[in-house]
């Protein structure tokens, strides 16, 4: 298995502020990886170090095996970054912007691919418009296009859907998912936890410059949150054995914590033995938001 991004004990200090305090992680080729954390956790700092926009105070980072400092040219060719800020060069049109960006990577005959990217991101109608004339959503799509002009195997998206309307967000994710299916490694930071839950194979949670959780999305959801079983019973008392798992209970409505689906059978058996009748039953899947909040509280 090739490692797309490898960070080893990465530290970053800005004067007295420790933005990253020894972060290590590796992202496998082809993975869809999420980087979550509250504001100021160090997500953008980590991405900046991976992209070569900032230099680590200590530690090493490699992109597809290339060190981002000593072999920066190869590392940067392997990487496409969609920055968080909506930045653009007001002097150029969309097509000029993409041609120039291609040229920075030494690609001077790249029009066929540029046309394809323009088409997939639905920028065709405005390809010859000046960047200044574009709406925020359009500018965001040009940023994505710029990150893709050199067909990088690894794509990093730093909060790409912040302030983007629902329709565009959907379109963007469809496109990114397709890139992932085509073999691109995707690293994503986002504030929308449902987005991360839906898209990412694995997730790292950062807090105050440290990784506080790093696992597959499925394991994270399982470990920290379990399942919530909502019941409406024909009575207002629960069998004693279940009391420890009650999250809330009121007038025959109960919410119980289950560690996994196997726990359901146990609850049903105890209810049967107590002679209770179930009027309604609902099993809620784990929720990344709850996991996130618990992890952040714990550390």
């Amino acid at each position, binding site marked *: 298995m090739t490692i797309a991004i490898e960070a080893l004990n990465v530290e970053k200090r800005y004067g007295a502020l420790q933005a990253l305090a020894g972060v290590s992680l590796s992202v496998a080729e082809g993975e869809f990886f999420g980087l979550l954390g509250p504001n100021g956790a160090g997500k953008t700092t980590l991405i*900046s170090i991976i992209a070569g926009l900032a230099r680590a105070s200590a530690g090493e980072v490699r992109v597809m095996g290339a060190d981002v400092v000593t072999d920066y040219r190869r590392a940067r060719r392997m990487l496409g970054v969609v920055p968080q800020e909506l930045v653009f060069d007001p002097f150029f049109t969309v097509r000029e912007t993409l041609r120039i960006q291609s040229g920075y990577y030494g690609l001077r005959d790249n029009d066929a691919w540029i046309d394809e990217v323009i088409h997939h991101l639905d920028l065709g109608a405005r390809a010859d418009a000046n960047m200044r004339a574009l709406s925020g959503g359009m500018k965001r799509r040009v940023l994505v296009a710029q990150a893709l002009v050199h067909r990088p195997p690894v794509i990093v998206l730093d909060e790409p859907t912040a302030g983007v309307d629902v329709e565009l967000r959907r379109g963007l994710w469809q496109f990114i998912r397709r890139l992932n299916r085509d073999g691109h490694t995707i690293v994503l930071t986002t504030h929308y936890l449902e987005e991360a839950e839906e898209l990412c194979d694995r997730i790292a949670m950062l807090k105050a410059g440290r990784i506080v959780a790093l696992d597959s999305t499925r394991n994270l959801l399982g470990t920290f949150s379990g399942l919530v079983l909502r019941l409406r019973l024909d009575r207002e008392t629960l069998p004693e054995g279940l009391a420890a798992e009650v999250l809330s209970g009121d007038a025959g409505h109960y919410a119980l914590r289950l560690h996994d689906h196997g726990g359901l059978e146990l609850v049903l058996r105890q209810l049967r033995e107590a002679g209770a009748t179930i009027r309604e039953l609902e099993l809620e899947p784990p929720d990344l938001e709850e996991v996130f909040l618990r992890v952040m509280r714990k550390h």
Partner: protein
Amino acid sequence: MASFPTLLYKELLRFWKVGFQTVAAPVLTALLYLVVFAYALEGRMRVYDQVSYAQFLVPGLVMMSVLQNAFANSSSSLIQSKITGNLVFMLLAPISYLEFFSAYVLASMIRGLVVGAGVLAVTVWFVELRVVAPLWVIAYALLGGAILGGLGLIAGIWADRFDQIAAFQNFVILPLTFLSGVFYSIRSLPEFWQQASRLNPFFYMIDGFRYGFFGISDVPPLASLAVVAVSFVLLSTACLLLLRSGYKLRQ
């Protein structure tokens, strides 16, 4: 040097797209200087016996335009990219600091030379000029443009705001160009100011450039060329070291 041609193209396209402001305006400014100074002072001032004041003035104005526009090009381009944030597209790409330096400086030289050529083309309608040593003219124009392009790059790296660039332009570049003998020969100055002028590298650029037109100068042209060449090497080294360190560009 895979990225260099595109970076150069981008820099050229940038100033060319606003050519009215970056080329036509400075040509007009230089022409106004010529009209005002040459006609106001004609007959009252004579620097060299065989050269009229208007003739004396033209090479100085051309070189001043080359220098000021070379500085304006790299400094304004870089500070704009820093402030609007689009510098990130260059920082993300595999561009070496040498390519970055070369593209910005060469584009600045070209802008300086285009404006300088424009000033020359317009002024020859008013003033008869001859060029006795064109190679000196070219050498000084190229080196002067490169020095100011590099200086603009340093200013752009250092500055965080537009007004800092404006301050650099108004408090460093403008005094140094005005006090370099564009409008007079330093021999007409008191001894102290003559010596002070000799500490100003811009003086050697103007004086040497003018030598190419008239074959006369305050300082031997080879000596001026040595000063200018050393200035170029020192400044370029400083600029390359700054770029390599990532000072104010990469955190």
